[in-house]
């Protein structure tokens, strides 16, 4: 059982010594109790320290992005940065509206496609398939998470875009639709697997009660199982959304990277992440351009934090009612 050792890593010394102390502890009961409570306290402190550490990382990142990003506004006005659609670094014009809009539009479009699809796949996995198929499908879905985004991007560029081009007859094919399809494939496993887990966690008695009242499977799933699993589904949607918001390497290969407003499905455009990754290698360090890119990174973080708070708030209300 080598795997059993893994969880102990966090408490390597305390855990092992505790084991030893238990073996040889027939004698002094008092010191043993003191020791145990000492270990307990130490363990708790280690845990708290880790949790705080995770938060610290987020704050150092926010600080890093914000500190550099804020310098943008020495040369660019707030209004220009947030509402201008002119992003021309050659002429020192830094309006980020196109990218902010693009990010939100792309994320929403991805969610519109992927959430219903993932929900159906989760229902398929949890309610309808025979056990052997479940056991085969679940690891495979997990596997899809591990395929490098470069590979998804490359397939998007060489398979998906020519396909879109021949189906719709557009000249280029790049744009938010192509990006949303690639992202859907990337977030599908995440959303459907977590939803699947939370649907499985709905107590069987709920379903039994529903069937006993004469409901069909459709009614049971839609009116009983999904509402009961709502909190888990929300969490799945947050995670999927976070991944869609932050995905870079795949998006940059299919979105076209042109600073123009995404007002059509097949217009090459750009989002926050793709613009950062396209331009950060070529940017002079002490320039408004560089600061503006860091500001965009900061905004990306803020957008995802806001979305998480909003979803949490909706979820909180749902739980209370």
């Amino acid at each position: 059982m080598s795997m059993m050792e893994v969880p102990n890593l966090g408490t390597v010394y305390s855990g092992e010594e505790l084991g030893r102390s238990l073996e040889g502890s027939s004698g002094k009961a008092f010191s043993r109790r003191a020791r145990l409570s000492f270990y307990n306290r130490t363990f708790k402190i280690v845990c708290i320290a880790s949790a705080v550490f995770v938060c610290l990382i987020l704050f150092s990142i926010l600080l890093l992005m914000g500190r550099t990003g804020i310098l943008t506004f020495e040369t660019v006005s707030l209004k220009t940065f947030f509402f201008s659609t002119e992003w021309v670094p050659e002429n020192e014009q830094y309006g980020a509206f196109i990218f902010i809009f693009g990010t939100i539009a792309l994320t929403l479009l991805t969610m519109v496609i992927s959430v219903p699809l993932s929900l159906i796949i989760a229902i398929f996995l949890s309610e309808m398939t025979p056990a052997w198929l479940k056991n085969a499908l679940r690891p495979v879905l997990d596997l899809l998470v591990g395929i490098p985004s470069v590979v998804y991007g490359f397939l998007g560029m060489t398979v998906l875009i020519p396909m879109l081009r021949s189906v719709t007859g557009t000249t280029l094919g790049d744009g938010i639709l192509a990006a949303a399809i690639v992202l859907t494939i990337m977030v599908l496993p995440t959303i459907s697997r977590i939803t699947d887990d939370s649907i499985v966690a709905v107590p069987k008695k709920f379903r039994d009660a529903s069937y006993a009242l004469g409901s069909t499977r459709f009614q049971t799933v839609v009116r009983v199982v999904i509402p009961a699993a709502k909190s888990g589904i929300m969490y799945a949607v947050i995670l999927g959304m976070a991944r869609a918001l932050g995905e870079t390497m795949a998006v940059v290969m299919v979105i076209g990277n042109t600073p123009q407003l995404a007002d059509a499905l097949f217009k090459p455009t750009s989002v926050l992440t793709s613009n950062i990754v396209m331009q950060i290698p070529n940017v002079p360090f002490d320039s408004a351009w560089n600061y503006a890119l860091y500001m965009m990174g900061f905004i990306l973080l803020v957008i995802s934090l806001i979305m998480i708070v909003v979803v949490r708030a909706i979820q909180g209300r749902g739980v209370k009612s």
Partner: protein
Amino acid sequence: MSTGKPSANAISGSHPFAARRSMNQLTNKLFTGIVWLIGICTILFIIALLYTILQKGLPQLDWGFLYGEPSEIEEGGGIGPVLFNSFYVLFISLIISIPLGMASGIYLAEFAPANKFIAFIRICVEGLASVPSIIFGLFGIVLFVESLDLGLTVIGAAISLAFLNLPVLTRVTEEAIRSVPQEMKQASFALGSTHLQTIRRVLIPVALNGIITGICLVAGRAFGESAVIILTGGVTSSGVMWDFNPLDPGATLAVHLWYVQSEAIVPDARLIAEKSAAVLVFIVLMINIVFRVPMWLNARKMR
């Protein structure tokens, strides 16, 4: 929590409800049909996707490719050192992130009082999960390359990767421990265990399945991650196999795949990219299977 309107099924044969009933049966059939259709489409799609990735590369794999050194000029370059680096970086990053992630997950699930501060920490963790990997890369540069002046190293890449993995591990551990039935915990306390003993002997073993699923997800994602490592580990490897020095340059297989796909000028770049992608996917599959074996064993033991 029941169906709002009781359906007519129960009163079989009663005429006033017959129309309604057949409607219900119809929607039900339609629903089942659609779900099966989409389910089967998904399965076919996944098979097609894996086939596209594996079919080009996997048949042409040989030991020379897996073990050989990358070549810039001649055909037939291998991926030995970068493949080794992949495992090495993954190993170090897991050593760092698993204890930290689990400890903070345990804190959130077990010790944390339900107040505003904890809600805040939880939002932080989720927020960190949504940070794009390129930003972790920039963070890694500032930390390891600029402040500590280490250059591009295995250790820098591994730690940056560990930061990337922390939030997911934290959340997964928290969820897994929360889903352990209260009765088990209470039984443990009733037997006089301390909190630490309960966590170590009861909660973690029971929650292990969930935690291992989380580790699988994280390991897979880390294995395929390139943006972070290009910035913190570089695009070179030390060029020799079994180089355990953590201060050597740390390009991994995913980085090599990116490099071959975007800059390399060897004549067989496309082939190397296909083979590397196949190896990557195959290894992620293996990670998923290998990590799950103890899980299945554990599940059998629990029964």
